[in-house]
């Protein structure tokens, strides 16, 4: 809502309060003023001029040579390019020395050999938007009414010596979609009076009800429909002050009748519609739901197909308006109109919203109906419009109205105790303070003991419950005046859950290990949604996606991380390590919420380590990735419960991928991207893992307990084993640790040899075995006994023999 500071002064005395101060006060008490526009900012030296002579420019077809009286003695010669400039016009002249928006300075000039001493201006040149300039002046200069005084300030005449406050209204404050509503608000803030506009007029003796009968089929949708009749109107421009006020509010002037309905819309917040009575073709107005498939041409000349969800105004048979949204071309006011049927109605917000949405027709009118107009202001708005039509369109207003009224208007009566107000706000107000606030708002009150009962005026439809009253008190008392305290009462221990704590541990560990945390989108494409998914389930599709790329909830994080690698790789970052923790979404059937499972994924590519001046370069490999995982599981106390098994995963290298198992259950995978996938993304060798973080962090772990540091020495035996190439070290390790227990404390691989010194199909794996007894020093014989058992088991279970 745009509020003209000058216009507002008609309703509230703003003496001593500048527009900027007013904006600050309004903002602090509840309605955000998003900006204050000074309309004549950067403009000076523009006066009213009289075009005394207009001739064709001798050297240019499209230019006029004008002699313009600007009230400074002899007329001055001005060359003008506007097609509509004509002798006898009163126009806006930027004199030599004037400044126009954009710091455009007017100087003496010669145009095609002819002297020009100034510029005749269009409204756009004076800083107004083209879309609000009256159509007849949109392509040329603006012409003042003939009575404009030569030499006076043109901007003043155009009401540009004004400031406009832009209100950002929240949905509950639809009352401020009108100048009167703003006036009540400002009056309450300043503690001043509201002056209501004039409506008193002498009607002629003919009765409106004799001209038209109102019938309403859809009473729920249209509980009040009032028609005023105005005869003998003369269509023409509305007064300049009205046009300029409309323009300051962002509305383009058309003609006096249409401008008056728009003016009332702004003044009262009540949308009105003017029909050309003679074009209605009947003496009846019937308000009904449209028929499915019914066609109707709105006044923008677009044919609309209606449905029974839409409310129409008809002449008994044909629609003449889409209620609350737009009139019909068939009954539009034209320059020939003489009799006006003026509609003032209360339409249900939901039905207007449906129509405006279905037809993409959001207008100033529909916006007000949607948010709810003041039911008590409908008739007053009609009266005021009729008064203005009599005054500025030469009309004669018929007595009374034609009406269909089933609207019951009951103002909200709400009570609240002073104790509750103070308890909710943390204040120490007295009943007198509270009464005074409601008096400023012009809400009626009565007080009994500790309780104040408030009757809210119908313009404030947002007041319904006691909390609404508390809010009114708070905002007018001022939030600045409310004290600052902290909650008292039983204290709560602030903490992270175990899961949240461990998640932070994992993140901090990964970052310490060299990975950057990424955050990507949950919505992805059909193609990517299920790539690398640990568990295949139906994908979850949005009902109305904005694009195919963001239409499905992800089943895995990796495809998004690979996009991150690709993006960075294309920007000269080909060595990169990133991870992400986030939910993936597993469908649980159409009507149930999906299962959301937190995953952890990481991707590393390019060089893992490089130290250029020493010539060190180490590309990422499987064991870099596995080392990262092992460190993480160590941090979480899960080292001994995690195993890796060679596996085949779609999109992954068939020989360099492992499934990760926790307590024997699959929780994820790790490995190299399939070379064809790498190539598709234009990446170097890339290693990735994705696992269920929920499973990892959810694993119960034992409390940390100290183990005594061994006091006796250990004995180490190294063995080199020859096995089949397919035999994995993990199998041998398991045999060793199972057979060697309890004296065997540790077994580690320290060499792998697959070279040509080995028999074909064989390899050598060397282990270091550490034996120890925490209670005593072991003898060689004891160790040998166990060690031989280990060797025997290796041979028996894995065909492993000592390398000769």
């Amino acid at each position, binding site marked *: 809502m745009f509020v003209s500071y000058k216009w507002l002064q008609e309703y509230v005395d703003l003496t001593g309060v500048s527009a900027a101060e007013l904006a600050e006060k309004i903002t602090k008490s509840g309605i955000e003023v998003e900006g204050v526009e000074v309309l004549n900012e950067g403009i000076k030296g523009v006066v009213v001029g009289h075009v005394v002579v207009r001739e064709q420019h001798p050297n240019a077809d499209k230019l006029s040579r004008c002699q313009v009286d600007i009230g400074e003695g002899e007329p001055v010669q001005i060359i003008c390019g506007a097609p509509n400039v004509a002798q006898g016009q009163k126009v806006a002249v930027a004199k030599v020395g004037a400044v126009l928006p954009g710091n455009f300075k007017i100087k003496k000039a010669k145009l095609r050999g002819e002297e020009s001493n100034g510029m005749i201006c269009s409204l756009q040149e004076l800083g107004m938007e083209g879309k609000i300039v009256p159509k007849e002046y949109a392509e040329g200069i603006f012409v003042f009414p003939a009575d404009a005084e030569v030499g006076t300030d043109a901007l003043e005449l155009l009401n540009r010596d004004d400031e406009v406050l832009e209100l950002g209204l929240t949905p509950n404050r639809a009352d401020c979609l009108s100048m009167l509503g703003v006036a009540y608000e400002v009056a309450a803030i300043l503690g001043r009076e509201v002056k209501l506009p004039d409506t008193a007029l002498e009607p002629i003796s003919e009765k409106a009800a004799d001209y038209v009968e109102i019938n309403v089929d859809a009473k729920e949708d249209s509980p009040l429909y009032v028609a005023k009749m105005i005869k003998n109107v003369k269509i023409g421009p509305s007064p300049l002050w009205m046009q300029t006020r409309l323009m300051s509010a962002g509305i383009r002037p058309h003609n006096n009748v249409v401008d008056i309905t728009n003016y009332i819309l702004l003044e009262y917040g009540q949308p009105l519609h003017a029909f050309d009575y003679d074009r209605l073709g009947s003496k009846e107005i019937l308000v009904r739901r449209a028929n499915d498939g019914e066609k109707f041409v709105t006044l923008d000349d677009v044919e609309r197909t209606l449905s029974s969800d839409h409310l129409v105004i008809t002449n008994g048979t044909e629609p003449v308006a889409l209620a609350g949204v737009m009139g019909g071309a068939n009954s539009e006011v034209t320059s020939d109109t003489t009799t006006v049927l003026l509609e003032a109605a209360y339409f249900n917000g939901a039905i207007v919203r449906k129509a405006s949405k279905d037809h993409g027709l959001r207008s100033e009118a529909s916006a007000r109906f949607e948010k709810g107009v003041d039911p008590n202001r409908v008739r007053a708005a009609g009266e005021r419009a009729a008064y203005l039509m009599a005054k500025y369109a030469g009309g004669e207003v018929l007595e009374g109205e034609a009406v269909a009224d089933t609207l019951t208007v009951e103002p909200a009566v709400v009570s609240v105790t002073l104790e509750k107000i103070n308890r909710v706000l943390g204040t120490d107000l007295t009943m007198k303070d509270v009464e005074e606030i409601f008096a400023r708002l012009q809400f009626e009150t009565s007080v009994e003991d500790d309780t104040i009962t408030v009757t809210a005026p119908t313009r404030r439809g947002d007041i319904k419950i006691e909390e609404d009253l508390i809010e009114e008190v708070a905002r007018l008392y001022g939030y600045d005046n409310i004290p600052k305290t902290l909650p008292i009462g039983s204290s*709560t221990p602030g903490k992270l859950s175990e899961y949240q704590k461990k998640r932070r541990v994992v993140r901090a560990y990964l970052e310490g290990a060299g990975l950057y945390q990424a955050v990507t989108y949950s919505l992805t494409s059909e193609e990517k949604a299920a790539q690398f998914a640990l568990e295949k389930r139906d994908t979850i599709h949005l009902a109305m996606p904005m694009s195919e790329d963001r239409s499905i909830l992800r089943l895995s994080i990796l495809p998004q991380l690979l996009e991150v690698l690709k993006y960075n790789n294309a920007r000269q970052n080909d060595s990169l390590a990133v991870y992400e923790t986030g939910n993936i979404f597993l469908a649980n059937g159409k009507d149930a919420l999906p299962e959301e499972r937190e995953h952890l994924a990481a991707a590393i590519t390019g060089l893992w380590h490089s130290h250029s001046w020493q010539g060190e370069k180490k590309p990422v490999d499987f064991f870099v990735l596995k080392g990262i995982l092992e460190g993480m599981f160590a941090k979480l106390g899960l080292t001994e419960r995690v195993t890796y098994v060679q596996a085949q995963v779609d999109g992954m290298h068939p020989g360099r991928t492992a499934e990760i198992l926790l307590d024997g259950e699959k929780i994820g995978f790790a490995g190299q991207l399939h070379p064809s996938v790498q190539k598709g993304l234009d990446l170097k060798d890339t290693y990735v893992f994705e696992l269920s973080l929920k499973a990892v962090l959810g694993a119960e772990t034992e409390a940390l307990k100290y183990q005594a540091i061994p006091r006796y020495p250990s004995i180490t035996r190294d063995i080199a084993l020859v096995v089949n190439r397919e035999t994995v070290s993990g199998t041998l390790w398991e045999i060793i640790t199972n057979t060697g227990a309890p004296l065997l404390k540790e077994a580690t691989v320290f060499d792998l040899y697959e070279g040509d010194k080995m028999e074909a199909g064989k390899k050598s794996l060397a282990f270091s075995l550490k034996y120890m007894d925490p209670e005593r020093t072991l003898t060689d014989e004891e160790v040998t006994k166990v060690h031989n058992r280990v060797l025997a088991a290796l041979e028996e279970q894995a065909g492993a023999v000592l390398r000769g």
Partner: protein
Amino acid sequence: MQERLRELQQEAIQKVEQSASLKELNDIRVAYLGKKGPITEVLRGMGKLSAEERPVMGALANEVREAIAAKIEAKQNELEEAAVLEKLASESIDVTLPGRPTKVGNQHPLTKIIEEIEDLFIGMGYEIAEGPEVEQDYYNFEALNLPKGHPARDMQDSFYITEEILLRTHTSPVQARTMEKHQGKGPIKIICPGKVYRRDNDDATHSHQFMQIEGLVVGENIRMSDLKGTLEVFAKKMFGQDREIRLRPSFFPFTEPSVEMDISCKMCGGHGCNVCKHTGWIEILGAGIVHPNVLEMAGYDSKKYTGFAFGMGPERIAMLKYGVDDIRHFYTNDVRFLKQFAVEE
């Protein structure tokens, strides 16, 4: 004989002084002090001397020996020290060359902001509550006083999956779920961070996915003044002790009264600049007293219990705090962007 000994002493000392290496020095030691050396030689002729002269000559011979030996030792120390210095000099390196890089990554800036806020509120007795990102219409809207048909819940603004299921548009449903879980009993003090989704085209200031953090306190005597005090603690810790806050009335369906909180602009100190659109204030978050309908729907007696809630956008806070100018940076994950947030503050 006496002269010979003095001569030898002088000769040896001269040689010691001229020697340049430990080997040379050792040769001198063997030559002069060895069993076959000239001093021994001289002493061998002592038999010819008288009984009076013998001890005098013996003492002199020892004196000469000791003088030479002392000189040799001194010279040896000198040479050894020089050798050490020479070795150290040869070992010197260019300390200005870059070190071997230790791999480090860091938190995403949004996580950084969220954890900072979490920790701040944990310190004030809050717990962190999380909830589903795919929500029932009931928790996302209805339980928050946004009944069906309410203009603020347009299909156009949300990502629906079915008529009853959608991607949450705010983290407020976590509040509704938490209250329901508490079965009408207080106190509750929670912070709810998480991802939310809205039908917006991604541009410099909009993102179809973004983060939100909400807070909720429910108890028997929770007041607007408590909200104001809590938000001031938050604002000062997050943005600096010199910042002022102000509350402005606003409107949200789930709170009544509703407010928005501004902080004084850091750029201009509240005098007005482009960052704060010449108002001196920057909007940070929305808040209010929990609407009685919301309390009642979650099973609380709104006569007995009151509460406050607040919600804010980590992206906006990060943009203000770090001067980030485009919200899409947070989701593009350009490493040149990410690595700028390595510094712990």
